[in-house]
């Protein structure tokens, strides 16, 4: 299922071009510090059928340099910048050799992921101002927003270049909440890594935990029982539902139609209480464990039906409201080609006509015929609203179906937390690795795990779909008016925490 090729730096661009034209997508790039060498892993995925291809490149630790892949793949260029900031690996010929993750007050030449990095040094001198591109011309002005916002929003800085009310250019500056999660994973036991994975992005507890567990299970060769897989699928869909409902409500709120938000949040609260009954945690933490799933109960089908009807009524009311619909229609269009080139994932991609879904491409359980992937081609706020409304329907159908098949197992006490993977490492065995690909509610999450000889985590690289989707936001906003930005931003609803890691 997963093939690994060790290749040299000179072969890299050729091979990558081959993979990309062959229908693969770049899922992640992760650098590793081995004992005497630097190693970079490129993970390409395609599906169905589920195909995962890894390219491994060994670099000289004294002169860590790579040929850039930016001209071949836009996300690759961003991974390379991330790698340069954290590891000091230089992508040669990169078209945008600016800092990305490390803000300008971090001292030059200090790379946090380096084994000898030590504790973070004190803030140094600012290395010049951030290179915002200035738009010049008659009547062009700049609006700086953030990183501290008026509402309860995560920190990010947006710089709008505006003429009148029309946005000419938007620059989003992120990584204000870089917490060093990849570093925090290192040296933890598998069990201790799980709570961290659940907290990569608080609203995606199941998605990230599941990707982490799938990767760990592949690395340790653990088999997960079929009913536990179905329980995991159930939790994944529940997470999708409660997040989608909240966002549909908030989209209405941003259009000034607060009553639908009030009702959407009421439904979300019901779902959160349901979540607590099922896993003991409102955001479904603790539901997914390495080797299995832990459910306390399964949702009642009648309750799900009532919730589904409620949600459908809310979306119908929103779409039937002429002003709300007018605000959504044609706002911030992300064209299919742009979404394709940027490498968008999740509902953002599916609202722009791309059909990618990891539940189809990389299934961890059989979803049966209930899985229906809604795709719209409008690319505007309305399309994203419609895709998410349709996804709620699909998710609830799946939850219902899965609940029915799980009820009997629950009575037998089968869905209890399984024992943590117990395969003891063979002496001298090293470099066991695994990859987890999960369709979280925002899109495909990819997590790659490498275990050390003693069974602890040597390296965990999670990639939230937000990392791929963030660059699409400024593209969609070109020629949109400033007052429609909050609506657009909410329709993307990207994670800052998941992006900044």
């Amino acid at each position: 299922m997963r093939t690994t090729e060790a290749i040299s730096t000179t072969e890299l661009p050729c091979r990558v071009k081959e993979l990309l034209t062959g229908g693969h997508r770049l899922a992640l790039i992760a650098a590793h510090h081995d004992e005497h060498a630097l190693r970079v892993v490129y993970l390409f995925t395609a599906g169905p059928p589920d195909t995962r291809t890894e390219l491994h490149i060994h670099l000289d630790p004294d002169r860590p340099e790579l040929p850039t892949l930016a001209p071949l793949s836009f996300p690759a260029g961003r991974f390379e910048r991330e790698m340069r900031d954290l590891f000091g690996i230089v992508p040669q010929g990169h078209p945008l050799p600016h800092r990305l993750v490390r803000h300008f007050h971090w001292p030059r030449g200090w790379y946090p992921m380096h084994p000898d990095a030590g504790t973070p040094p004190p803030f140094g001198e600012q290395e010049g101002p951030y290179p915002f591109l200035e738009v010049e011309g008659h009547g062009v002005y700049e609006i700086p927003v953030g990183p501290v916002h008026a509402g309860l929003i995560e920190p990010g800085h947006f710089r709008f270049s505006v003429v009148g009310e029309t946005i000419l250019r938007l620059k989003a500056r992120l990584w204000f909440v870089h917490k060093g999660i990849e570093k925090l994973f290192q040296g933890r036991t598998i069990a201790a890594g799980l709570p961290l994975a659940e907290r990569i992005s608080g609203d995606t507890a199941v998605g990230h935990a599941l990707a982490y567990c799938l990767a760990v299970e592949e690395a340790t060769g653990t088999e997960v029982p079929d009913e536990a897989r179905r329980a995991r699928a159930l939790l994944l869909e529940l997470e999708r539902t409660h997040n989608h409902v909240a966002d549909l409500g908030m989209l209405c709120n941003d259009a000034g139609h607060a009553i639908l938000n009030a009702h959407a949040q009421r439904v979300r609260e019901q779902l959160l209480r349901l979540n607590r009954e099922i896993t003991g945690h409102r955001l479904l933490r603790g539901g997914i464990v390495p080797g299995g799933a832990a459910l306390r109960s399964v949702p009642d089908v009648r309750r799900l039906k009532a919730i589904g009807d409620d949600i459908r009524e809310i979306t119908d009311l929103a779409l039937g409201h002429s002003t709300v619909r007018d605000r959504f229609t044609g706002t911030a269009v992300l064209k299919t080609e742009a979404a394709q080139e940027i490498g968008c994932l999740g509902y953002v991609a599916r609202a722009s006509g791309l059909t990618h879904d990891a539940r189809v491409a990389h299934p961890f359980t059989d979803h049966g015929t209930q899985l229906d992937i809604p795709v719209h081609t409008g690319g505007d706020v309305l399309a994203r609203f419609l895709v998410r409304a349709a996804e709620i329907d699909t998710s609830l159908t799946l939850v219902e179906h899965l609940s029915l098949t799980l009820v009997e197992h629950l009575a037998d006490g089968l869905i209890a937390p399984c024992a943590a993977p117990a395969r003891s490492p063979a002496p001298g065995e090293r470099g066991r690795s695994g990859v987890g690909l999960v369709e979280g509610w925002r899109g495909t999450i990819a997590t790659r795990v490498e275990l050390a000889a003693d069974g602890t985590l040597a390296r965990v690289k999670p990639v939230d779909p937000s990392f791929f989707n963030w660059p699409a936001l400024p593209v969609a906003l070109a020629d949109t008016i400033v007052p429609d930005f909050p609506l657009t931003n909410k329709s993307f609803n990207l994670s800052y925490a998941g992006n900044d890691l």
Partner: protein
Amino acid sequence: MNAIGYVAVAGQVMAVVIGAPLLTGWMRQVRARLEGRAGPGPLQPWRDVRKLLRKEPITPVGTGPAFRAAPALLVATTVVAAALVPLLSTDTPVSAHADLIVVVALIALGTLALALAGLDTGTAFGGMGASREMTVASLVEPTLLLSVFALSIPAGTTNIPAIVSSAAHAPARLASPAGLLAIAALAVAILAETGRIPVDNPSTHLELTMIHEAMVLEYAGPDLALVELGAQMRLTLLLGLLSSLFAPWGIATSASWAALAVALALLAAKVLLLGAVLAAAEVFWAKVRLFRVPELLAGSFLLALLAVTASYFLNGAA
């Protein structure tokens, strides 16, 4: 007799100053209940004002007199307008000065002061908010004037107390096409002037969509209390004016204590009712796209123009 007149003026000012936060609180409470929320109760705006007044005054570096004078000017213009406009009585010592153009100019002066203050901060939001507010104001003020002109034509004067007292004596005139068109135009203009949905969203926290709030983002402490109080007073004043113009029943047209007391009770009832209707309407409306706002306001201007035309021709026929 003169004493009653001065009491009426003082009563109007007090009713607007004290009643404004209560009206806002009442509207928020109505809205909260309609949306299925508990709501903080109608006294919350007063608590907010009290809290803000106790804070230390802070002004941003680099701001000048325009920024510091604006809150006081906003409240002062509204207080003067509240004294002039016939809310409780049409027979007061100042009613001879209560010309329509004076009142609209006073309201516009408050708007202008805030817009200048927004520009004075030198921030992107202040400038953006001021620009949007001026765009809206330039469309709203003519509508305010024109819609009341429709009523002033039959009364033969632009003196508001005279218009109101003549309407109180001939209420049938209000149900005429001119009267109804003028009500619709004035209602839309008031929504826009006071920054309500569908033009502006007073409860949003999203800086980029704001109109009124964006201008006043830099205010804090007692200045913010004045700005908020001023905005609430304008809403109360304009709703009071709307009810006096189109439902003048109960307003004191002569100097008597009993008439004044009845007028106060009826004013409170009418404004609370209007507030509740507005709050209920806001539950069902959404905010229109910013570029649709001029269309909406142009529509209301057109209604006002039709009202004047209708009023003129119907008057001529009679």
